[in-house]
Each structure stands twice: as structure tokens, then as C-alpha cells.
């Protein structure tokens, strides 16, 4: 049922919507923190003595070993009870302390992550956004232009979406970088240059950017195009489209209506699937030895660097939760049905 709303109460309802969502995400975050804290503690044996002997390879005095050991016991709070350990873990998080890396001792985890994050952010975000936009436009076109586009685009999109990001990356790397020698084979920039804002460095970074970017974009385009095609077919079969047609409205106008209605679920769908997508797209960095979070995670896993692994997983979780929360807010702004649902909830 539709009710007339005065602007003040609309705003209040929107605020209550955001408040509720925020509370829910906070709960999810606490749960994610518990997982992130607890699971690595199930590792069998005494990882710390293993790690210490690994860091201190080659004739280190036992005094140094003991000091290293004590540092980590204190950092993990292993001498305390599990709930107390969790509280000190959360306390450390709030102070921006994610512990000390095992493999790059004594570098703090936050430093390593801070170095890698800009690379991942600059690669993943634009690639996913561009892939989303291109995919949705293509999907809408495929739904509208039945024959030619649909029969070529649909199987092609499905095939692209069946290859994981990193596998497509391997193919692009081999054909374009190794066989044809058009692009660099590894890294985020020319190793002879230092990281700076010079034209040469930016040019080199852009050159190294092309292939990893293309791998993520192409796979995303495939998935989005399929989803959008289905959504658009649903809309094209609906009564209002038939009505518009019978009124003699131009196809340009109809396709705009259809696009608007079909694209909304695609936005939330994308936000929700981000948790799945992010795995494949981060692993793409490994293929290209791209200096981002995916590469850091890979090295950390190889060297059993638990603090660094936990730092990576926490960062990925935060990014996905944050993106979902932002999407929820903007969705509440765009789609009046969300606010209407809130009104109905308040009325019952």
C-alpha cells in the first residue's frame, strides 16, 4: 500500500534504515573478527617455536631466540585465556597494530599491507567497475537485439565467465606478453625505476597494468552480461513494456525504462557476489607478480606467516563489508521500494 510521506519522516526513516544496516554490519564484523582470530589458533603444534627457529636460522645465540620467542608469546598473548587473548587482539586492532610479520621480521604487518594496498586498490576497483558497466550495457543490448547479438554474445559471455580471472590471466600473459612480446611479463612497474610520481614511472606502471586489468575486466563483463540479459528479458516480457509498445513509444525510450528497472538488482547482486569475486581477482595478481594484496597473501601462505595472513584476510573482509554497506546506503537512496519496505515494517 502506498502512503503519502512528508519529507521529515522520510528522512527519519532513511536514517533508521541506515542505522539498522550499520548495526547489522557491525555484528557481521565482530563475527568475522572472531573467525579471523580463532581459526589460525587451531594450527597444530607450537607454531611460535617453529617460526622462531625459522627466523633465526644460522647460528643465532639462544638469548636472541628466547627474546624472539617472548616477543611473539606476548604479541599473541598466549599466556592468557582465550577470551582475554581475543580482547587484547581487538585492542591491538584498534591501535592499528596487526602484529609483526614472521617472514619479514621485524617489519610490522601494517607496513607490508600499506605498501601493497594502493596497488590492489588501483587494480581491482577500476577493473570491477569497468567490467560491471560494460557487461551490463552489453547484456541489455543482447536482450533487446535478439538474433545477432544474443547468439554470439551469450555463449561468449558464458565462456568468459567460466574461466577464472587468473586462468584468463595466464592465457593473456602467455599469448600477449611471452609469445608476442607486447607487454611486460611480470611486476607492477619496471624494477629499474623507483616508486615516484615521475612521468616515466607512471608510464611504466600503466604499461604493466594492462594485462591484469584486462583479465579481471573480461571475466566480469561475461558474468554481468549474462545476469543483465536475463533481467532485461524479464522486464521486456512485462506488461508495462507491452503497454508502452502499444502506445507506439520508440524503442530507445523503452530500452531506457527496461535498463533502469533491470539494473537495480544487478547493483545489489554485484555487491553480494563481491565476496566470491574478490578471491579470483586477487589471485590474478599472483599470475602477473603484481605487487598487491593477492601477491602478499600468496607469499605469506608459502612462508606460514600467520600474522601476515590474518592481516590480509582481515583487510579483504573489511573491504567487502565496507563495499556492501556503501551499496546498501546508495540503494536506499536510489530505490524508493527500500524506503517503502521500511515504512511497512514500521507500520506492522
Amino acid at each position, binding site marked *: 500500500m502506498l502512503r503519502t510521506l512528508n519529507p521529515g519522516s522520510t528522512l527519519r526513516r532513511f536514517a533508521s534504515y541506515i542505522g539498522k544496516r550499520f548495526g*547489522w*554490519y557491525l*555484528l*557481521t564484523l565482530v*563475527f*568475522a573478527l572472531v*573467525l*579471523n582470530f580463532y*581459526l*589460525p*589458533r*587451531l*594450527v*597444530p603444534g607450537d607454531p611460535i617455536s617453529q617460526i622462531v627457529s625459522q627466523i633465526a636460522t644460522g647460528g643465532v645465540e639462544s638469548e636472541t631466540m628466547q627474546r624472539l620467542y617472548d616477543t611473539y608469546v606476548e604479541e599473541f598473548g598466549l599466556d592468557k585465556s582465550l577470551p582475554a587473548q581475543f580482547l587484547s587482539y581487538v585492542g591491538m586492532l584498534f591501535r592499528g597494530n596487526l602484529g609483526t610479520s614472521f617472514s619479514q621480521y621485524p617489519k610490522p604487518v601494517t607496513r607490508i599491507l600499506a605498501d601493497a594496498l594502493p596497488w590492489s586498490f588501483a587494480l581491482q576497483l577500476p577493473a570491477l567497475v569497468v567490467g560491471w558497466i560494460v557487461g551490463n550495457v552489453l547484456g541489455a543490448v543482447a536482450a533487446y537485439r*535478439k538474433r545477432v547479438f544474443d547468439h554470439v554474445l551469450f*555463449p561468449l559471455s*558464458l*565462456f568468459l*565467465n*567460466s*574461466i*577464472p580471472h*587468473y*586462468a584468463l590471466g*595466464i*592465457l593473456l*600473459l*602467455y599469448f600477449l606478453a*611471452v*609469445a608476442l612480446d607486447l607487454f611486460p*611479463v611480470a611486476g607492477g612497474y619496471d624494477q629499474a625505476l623507483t616508486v615516484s610520481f615521475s612521468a616515466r614511472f607512471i608510464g611504466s606502471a600503466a604499461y604493466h597494468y594492462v594485462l591484469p586489468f584486462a583479465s579481471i575486466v573480461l571475466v566480469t563483463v561475461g558474468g554481468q552480461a549474462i545476469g543483465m540479459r*536475463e533481467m532485461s*528479458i*524479464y522486464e521486456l*516480457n512485462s506488461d508495462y513494456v507491452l503497454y508502452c509498445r502499444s502506445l507506439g513509444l520508440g524503442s530507445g525510450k523503452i530500452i531506457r525504462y527496461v535498463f533502469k528497472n533491470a539494473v537495480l538488482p544487478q547493483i545489489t547482486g554485484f555487491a*553480494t557476489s*563481491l*565476496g*566470491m569475486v*574478490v*578471491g*579470483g581477482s*586477487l*589471485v590474478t595478481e*599472483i*599470475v602477473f607478480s603484481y605487487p598487491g594484496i593477492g601477491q602478499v*597473501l*600468496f607469499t605469506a*601462505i*608459502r612462508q*606460514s606467516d*600467520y600474522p601476515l*595472513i*590474518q592481516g590480509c*584476510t582481515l583487510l*579483504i*573482509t573489511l573491504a*567487502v*563489508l565496507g563495499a*556492501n554497506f556503501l551499496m546498501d546506503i546508495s540503494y536506499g537512496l536510489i530505490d524508493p521500494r527500500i524506503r517503502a519496505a521500511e515504512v511497512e515494517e514500521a507500520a506492522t
Partner: protein
Amino acid sequence: MIDLLKRVWTSPKARSGCVVFACVLAFGLLGPLCLEAEPTDMVGELYEPPSATRWLGTDNFGRDIFTQLAHGTRTSLQVGLLAGLIATLIGTAMGSVAGYKGGLLDAVLNSVTNLFLVIPPFVVLILLSISLRTRSVAVLAVIIGVTSWPWVSRSVRAQVYSLKTRRHVDIARISGFGTFAIIVREILPYILSYIVMAFVLQVASGILTEATLSMLRLGPYNAVSLGTMMSWALMFEAVRAHAWWAFIPPVLLIAVITFSLKYINSGMDEVFNPRLRRT
């Protein structure tokens, strides 16, 4: 069930998808039986190109790629099918109980589902994998299955919710049947096509997830999979050494398996979802 399969067979998409998947399945099942060598046998030199005796050449340890491919396909299918089965069972149970019961139970189950939908399964899988004592094929399939059910649960719940006010369900309720009997006899048969479709997609995503974990070197420790083959090829610079036979076959095979499954799913969608048919 037979009726369902007959209707699926009417879709050309589902039909061709099934044929391709059956071929891959045959390769994964019969290949390891027909080939005498083990995938770990070192039979030749480093990166030998394809030849008459070694159809797809050798890898960095001189192991036969074709043999590995057959065993790898089997492993990937095992993980995918088992993980898909687990995810579909958990998701169907959670979704149907939540959708049918409603109320507080629904609210609780739905929150749990949404919780696991937002926390990246990738992250949970990494945390689980690094803390496990062993990572056999079965263990890997189980952990992939138990982290990927929320999608199934959500769509099953929506379907059950729209079905539970049907008259035949009411009659069963009045006749005194219990919740379990009503769900199994009066509701699930009507959404069987959705459950099968969800299962098909879960198998595909299980195979991809295993490959992703293997790329992070968290794959099965006791078997070759398509993912571990890609990971080894990358680690030992097959790409930069122009040894295309070491990585193109597993990449293509993974794409073909998931493509065939998604094609089946899309064909089924057109059969069971009249709104998707073009007018």
C-alpha cells in the same frame, strides 16, 4: 525425477551442456584407469614438447602432462561434485525450514545465511585451510561445501516461502502431517528443478574454488588437480619458458567443465522459468 530429466532434455542448451560434461566425466573416470603411469612418475626430461609417445609433453619434473590431466580432471570433479552435494544439502535444509516455519526461526536462520553471504567465503576458506592438519581431497571438498551453501539457502527459502500457502500444503497440515513430512512430500518436489539447478552451479563453483585455493598453494596435498597443475606451471615458469602444453590444457579443461555446467543451468532455466522464454 524422470519427468524432470525429460523436460531438461528438450532444451538444446542443456542437451549440449550435458554431452560435453559427460565427455569430461568419462575422461576423468576412464582416463586414470586406462593410463598405466601414475601422475607422479617422472618419465622424461624437463618440459618436453608434445610428441607421439607423450601427447601433451612433460612438466618441470618430467612428469607426463596427459596422465596428470586425466587424474587432475578426476580430482577436480570429485571436489566439485562432493562440495556441490554438501552445499546443496545444507542450503536446501536451511532454506526450506526457514521459509516454511517463518517467524523467529526464519529470522535467525536468515541472519546466519546473510552473515555467511557477506563474509567472503574465500577468506574463511584460507583461514580454515591454514589451520587444518591435513588437506586431502575429501577434506577440501567438505570445507568448500560448508562455506558455499548460503546462496542455495537464500534461493530455496524464497521458493518455499511462495509455495507454503498453496492449498495442498494446507491440506497436508490439517491432516496432521509434521513439518518434515510436509517439506519433503509437499514442497520439495515442486522446487526440485531449482534445487537441481542450484546443485549444477555449486559443482561449477566448487571446481573453481578448488582451483583458486590451489593457486594459493592451499590445494590437496595428496593429489593432482587442474588447479595444482596451473599453480605448478606458474611456479616453475612454464609460461615464461614457452611451455604452453603445461598450462593451456588445464586452463581449457577448467573452462570447458564450468562452461558446460553453466550452459546446462541456463538451458534448465529457460525450460522451468517461462518468463525467460521470449515472446
